[in-house]
């Protein structure tokens, strides 16, 4: 029972009771009235700018803005009067009149909120044609392409960057018709404070923002008989890919995904979860080393390239806190081109490694100069979950009908610890599972650390391990990362070990994942559905600790010797460099 005040109002003749403080839009949803919105993104962009959601309220002059304005006791709302419909149609008409309308060839064709509304309102032609604003396309960064000829100035991306991530790499510039979403001096994203987290892409209702695609490059490699193309997929991809084929949010499609990848022609299909297990071995070892030998603490995870770029641009003096471990797919890529190549006698120069990631910062990460060994790139291409879905569609594969298959041996084995890397708190939990066993020198029964799970921006826990108190924290989203870093800067950080992921909620809602409409995001918790699915994978796994993964054991026995060894450092660790926030 809620102790909040209830109010009753009438919407389109239907009575509805809601808690005081509910918006008209939400109240309408309760009686199955779907008021259209465009600039609205729940809790992120509630500005009322686009004017799609306007409604009439009896006794009030002018329209009410239903996405922001609160329902009031006795209010009589009409959401679909001729006046309202005419205004909405005009808004759509005007929006289209300044929009690049190459819809059929747009990356968002079929998943565009503007398109949906035009279908809904049966917009057949554009009445008010006129001058259009012209914007140069920014495709200079390795991660994001901005085509603001498709921007409708809803500013959802700005709010996401500024309010959620607290970066503010983009903002509104200019005035009136000349307004645009812009970086400073409209410089390329690669030269400003953008971290390539890609959350802006997820919030864009049209095709103004998208990842820099590598689909064609990957096709080319797949068609080349000389190239041995190996693919690996991140833990978060399997719980989201199905959505691109109409399956429920969070469906685990691992089996179908593996089959599809094989059908696409990849020579080997491996699991980044295995790479994650390897990361845990190295990272847990590094943490214990630091803990026991007075190293820099807290140690902070380094799997999230958006976070790493953020740290390099904002906290150059604190980079010693970052674990020197490469991220799982980079480690795995390096192993594929060394251990695997040697073992299976494949010329490593002929191996092409492709990573399917829920992330667009990974595209930048794989292009970093540090990410190679002896002139051989760890990972050649990163494609997003969305790009993989496109490739599957292009290959005429009826995805939903595919049978299940398993990742390939010998490197396909992974623990449940590797699986949970895909969500906030997962890396920490996996690392703790291994670190605790190592420190206690025995296998501890406790496997699940629920205190680091869930949606909270910063989660904390204190563990008692081998008679020692270890304070840990998990932060997701760059606004929370900043809080952790400011604490460290002021010498007030109580933690020993911190996990940071750039995207709020972790990789399951990474910038490369399927894009959900504002309406879906209002209705369901996308992050939770996908994360639950990941935790279910862990729960069902026979092996739930990275150090118990037999392949990992074998890899150390046969090749790397032990975590932190000379070879480990050569292939699995990296360095960071302070970067100018603005290269302008």
């Amino acid at each position: 029972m809620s102790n909040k005040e209830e109010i009753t109002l009438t919407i389109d003749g239907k009575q509805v009771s809601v808690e005081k403080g509910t918006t008209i839009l939400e109240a309408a949803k309760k009686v199955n009235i779907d008021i259209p919105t465009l600039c609205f993104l729940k809790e992120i962009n509630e500005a009322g700018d686009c004017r799609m959601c306007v409604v009439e309220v009896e006794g009030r002059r002018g329209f009410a803005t239903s996405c922001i304005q609160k329902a009031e006791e006795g209010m009589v709302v009409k959401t679909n009067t001729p006046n309202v419909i005419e205004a909405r149609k005009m808004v759509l008409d005007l929006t289209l009149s300044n929009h690049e309308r190459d819809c059929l060839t747009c990356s968002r064709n079929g998943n565009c909120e503007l398109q949906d509304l035009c279908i809904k309102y049966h917009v057949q032609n554009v009445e008010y044609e006129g001058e259009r604003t012209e914007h140069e396309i920014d495709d200079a960064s390795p991660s994001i392409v901005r085509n603001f000829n498709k921007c409708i100035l809803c500013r959802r991306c700005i709010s996401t960057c500024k309010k959620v991530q607290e970066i503010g790499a983009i903002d509104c510039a200019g005035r009136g018709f000349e307004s645009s979403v812009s970086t400073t001096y409209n410089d390329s994203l690669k030269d400003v404070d953008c971290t390539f987290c890609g959350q802006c892409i997820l919030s864009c209702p049209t095709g103004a923002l998208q990842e820099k695609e590598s689909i064609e490059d990957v096709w080319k490699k797949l068609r080349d008989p000389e190239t041995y193309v190996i693919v690996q997929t991140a833990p978060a991809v399997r719980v989201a890919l199905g959505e691109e084929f109409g399956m429920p949010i969070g469906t685990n499609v691992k089996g179908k995904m593996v089959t599809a990848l094989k059908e696409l022609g990849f020579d080997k299909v491996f699991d980044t979860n295995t790479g994650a297990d390897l990361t845990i071995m190295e990272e847990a070892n590094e943490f214990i080393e630091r803990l026991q030998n007075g190293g820099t603490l807290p140690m902070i995870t380094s799997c999230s390239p958006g976070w790493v770029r953020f740290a390099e641009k904002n906290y150059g003096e604190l980079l010693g806190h970052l674990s020197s471990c490469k991220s799982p797919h980079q480690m795995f890529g390096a192993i594929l081109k060394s251990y695997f190549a040697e073992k299976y006698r494949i010329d490593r120069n002929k191996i092409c490694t492709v990573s399917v990631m829920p992330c667009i910062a990974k595209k930048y990460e794989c292009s970093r100069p540090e990410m190679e060994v002896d002139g051989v790139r760890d990972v050649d291409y990163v494609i997003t979950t969305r790009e993989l879905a496109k490739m599957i569609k292009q290959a005429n594969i009826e995805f939903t009908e595919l049978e299940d298959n398993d990742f390939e041996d010998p490197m396909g084995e992974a623990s449940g610890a590797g699986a949970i890397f895909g969500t906030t708190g997962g890396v920490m939990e996996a690392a703790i599972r291994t670190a605790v066993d190592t420190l206690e020198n025995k296998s501890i029964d406790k496997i699940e650390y629920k205190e680091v799970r869930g949606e909270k921006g910063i989660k904390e826990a204190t563990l008692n391990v081998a008679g020692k108190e270890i304070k840990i924290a998990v932060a997701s989203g760059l606004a929370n990362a900043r809080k952790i870093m400011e604490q460290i800067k002021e010498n007030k950080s109580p933690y020993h070990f911190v996990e940071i992921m750039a995207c709020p909620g972790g990789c399951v809602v990474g910038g490369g994942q399927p894009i959900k409409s504002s309406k879906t995001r209002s209705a369901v918790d996308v992050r939770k559905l996908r994360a639950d699915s990941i935790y279910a994978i862990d729960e069902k796994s026979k092996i739930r600790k990275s150090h118990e993964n037999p392949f990992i054991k074998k890899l150390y026995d046969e090749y790397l010797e032990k975590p932190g060894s000379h070879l480990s450092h050569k292939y699995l660790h990296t360095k960071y460099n302070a970067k100018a926030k603005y290269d302008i």
Partner: protein
Amino acid sequence: MEEKCVDKKVREETKEILEKHPREKDQLIMVLNDVQEKYGYIPKQSQLVISEYLSMPMAEIYGVITFYSRFTLSPKGKYNIAVCLGTACFVKGSEKILDRVKQKLGIDVGQTTPDGKFSIDATRCIGACGLAPVFTVNDEVYGKATVQMVDEVIEKYQKM
């Protein structure tokens, strides 16, 4: 090298301006007004310093600069000709005055001649409605303007 020196000077001068204001984000427009006043535009180096001092992203500062018409991103000409397009002047034919200035200098509103000598602004009411139509060259006001007067005035400054 010389450029770097200029940058350093601008940064230091901007810091001096900043120190006259409380370190609050709401001071941004006041600070920008001072910087605009000092340089006749808002140099990028100033913006970088302001961004650091007020812990504000560069894009936000850029957004504010480009919103307010008083702020400019590039220096104006040595002689800035501002034609008043307030209603009183408009009704008395200021469009013709502006057209003539543009034609005479071969540049548009907001531009500067290649030699850096002249720039044109179209302003809103400058308050000399009794003298409409009015244009100014820097601080000098020319009232009851005619097309011929534009020619004469521009020629005068061309010789200066």
